[in-house]
């Protein structure tokens, strides 16, 4: 096959092995917060060992939304994050972790920066301040714009994660994404998991370079995209389930990728799990990535 081989990547999270005892020892001995770098280093190493070419920081610190609400002013992290004051960008949330990943990443690997989408943030928090979904979403978008601008020099691509599109696509989605990426020039990926078959035309209008979806869990997406796809976008093909421990066979994944090639042709630029891997056992997550890598090798005759 002579088409360009898609890169194996991740959506974001990778299961972390956190040594809680060591963290407490650090506290009792030195009264200090422990370094998180060993956790990040381990996650990155496992992704690289599995054959991932576009690597994230693993989002090991927290669930993907909490990473940002913990870092932004105005948010109080509770069972659900509460917005208690106007949203404020205080300092970069993920920059130091990304700089660390860059420092340990092999030179032939690329780095994926991750930001959660403003719509998803606005829908997931308890709002005690704005009383207006749109205003809240744009407040998050402004904070995320500053984050994206600061991480851009360190990363090769930024992925905006908007899982809440599956529950409802806001009329102002394009404006929100435009705001977040307004000052960056690196390629942008938009990840929306769940069944988004009904909003494919709207997704294709978003100001991003790559669309990323759960094609393994929602194979109906192939038909939905067949109907509307116009090659204005590249595709990140979700190819294994992130919500099941069963590890798909290489043959299954090969068939899945071949179907992706039929629909998207050369616009198929990334292969990934359907979503973040955080909730899977680490050995399962690693094996899924390894089989994705092996399947790509089979499909592209390497």
């Amino acid at each position, binding site marked *: 096959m002579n088409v360009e081989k898609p890169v194996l990547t991740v959506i974001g999270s990778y299961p972390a092995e*956190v040594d809680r005892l060591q963290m407490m020892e650090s*506290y009792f001995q030195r*009264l200090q917060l422990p370094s998180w770098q060993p956790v990040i280093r381990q996650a990155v190493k496992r992704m690289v060992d599995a054959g991932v070419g576009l690597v994230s920081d693993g989002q090991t610190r927290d669930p993907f939304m909490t990473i940002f609400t913990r870092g932004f002013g105005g948010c109080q992290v*509770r*069972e659900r994050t509460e917005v208690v004051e106007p949203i404020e960008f205080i300092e970069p949330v993920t920059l130091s972790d990304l700089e660390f990943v860059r420092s340990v990443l092999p030179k032939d690997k690329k780095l994926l920066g991750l930001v959660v989408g403003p719509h998803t943030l606005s829908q997931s928090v308890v709002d005690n301040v704005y009383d207006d979904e749109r205003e809240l979403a744009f407040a998050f978008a402004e904070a995320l714009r500053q984050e994206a601008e600061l991480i851009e020099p360190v990363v090769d691509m930024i992925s905006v994660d908007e899982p809440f599109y599956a529950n409802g696509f806001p009329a102002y989605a394009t404006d929100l994404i435009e705001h977040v990426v307004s000052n960056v020039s690196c390629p942008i990926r938009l990840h929306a998991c769940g069944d988004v078959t009904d909003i494919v035309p709207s997704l294709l209008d978003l100001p991003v370079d790559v669309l990323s979806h759960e094609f393994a869990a929602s194979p109906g997406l192939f038909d939905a995209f067949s109907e509307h796809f116009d090659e204005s976008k590249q595709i990140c093909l979700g190819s294994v389930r992130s919500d099941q421990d069963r590890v798909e066979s290489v043959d299954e994944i090969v068939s899945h990728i071949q179907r992706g090639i039929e629909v998207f042709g050369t616009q198929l630029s990334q292969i990934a799990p359907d979503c973040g891997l955080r909730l899977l056992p680490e050995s399962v997550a690693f094996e899924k990535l390894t089989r994705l890598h092996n399947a790509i090798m089979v499909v592209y005759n390497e």
Partner: protein
Amino acid sequence: MFSFTKDQQVFELQDIFFGGQPGLHPTVLFGGLFFKGNPDFTSAEKEIQSMLDVSERVGVPGIPDVFIKKEKDIDSILSFIKRVLPEGYPFSVDITDPVVKVKVLKALDDHGLLSRTIYNSLHVGVTEREQSMLSKHSPAMAIVVAFNPKDKSPDGKVEVLENGANLIDQGLLDLAKTCGIDQVLVDTAALAPGDYSGAAIAALPVVKEEFGLPSGCAIHNVVEKSTWLKDFECAKPLVDQSSNVNVPVFGGDFLLFGPIEYSSTVFPLIAWEDMLVSEYTEGYFGVTPSSGHPRRRLMG
């Protein structure tokens, strides 16, 4: 001075009361008993007796916080505690090694001491084995350390108590209940100087308002980590001991004040502070001090 809108839980062990609105009960003081090498029980007995004497004189309760480091010392230390403390008198066991922790729990049960034990401590480093042993050999009370490795602010401390900060499956408070421990003291986890050390003090009223539970901390540890104080040899012990007044001023209920040897200074110091708090909270909030309060004991 503070008064909390949330109902305050008060726990009791052998007539020692933990918690409540500021000014109701005196601050409970935990004096650290550390053994170096082979335990020197003669010296330890004298220190405990001195602490109990000054506690009785000023009306501030004192509890020995016994550090157990080695498995081989468990039985001798527990036998010593049984022998020297008045019958039924509470004590706490301070253990960091998870292997030693589970051995101590079993030994406490064997010695018939669980009903007077304060377990120091439960935190996000809890192991499955420890949880299982705590459920089987539940102590009367536990100190829960609200250390959140992800967030050093008072909010972070609330988070780890409430939901475990995504490090453990449930919040530390629910975890304690799951282990059969209903009486919980919240240690607001003092951090090193330069690392947001004041948050442990700021968190004292936050924890009480949020959960209605007794709160306290070992603020003197921050003084120990203040290396610049080495240049002020005379002042350092004074700063160490006086740092403890922050706890009652900010509405806290208990404090781990450092080496038990400091008892003769720290108990009168905290008695004075408790009286100061009580005078105001009775006058302004109508909180009548309990019968054994230093304000009653020392001012007639």
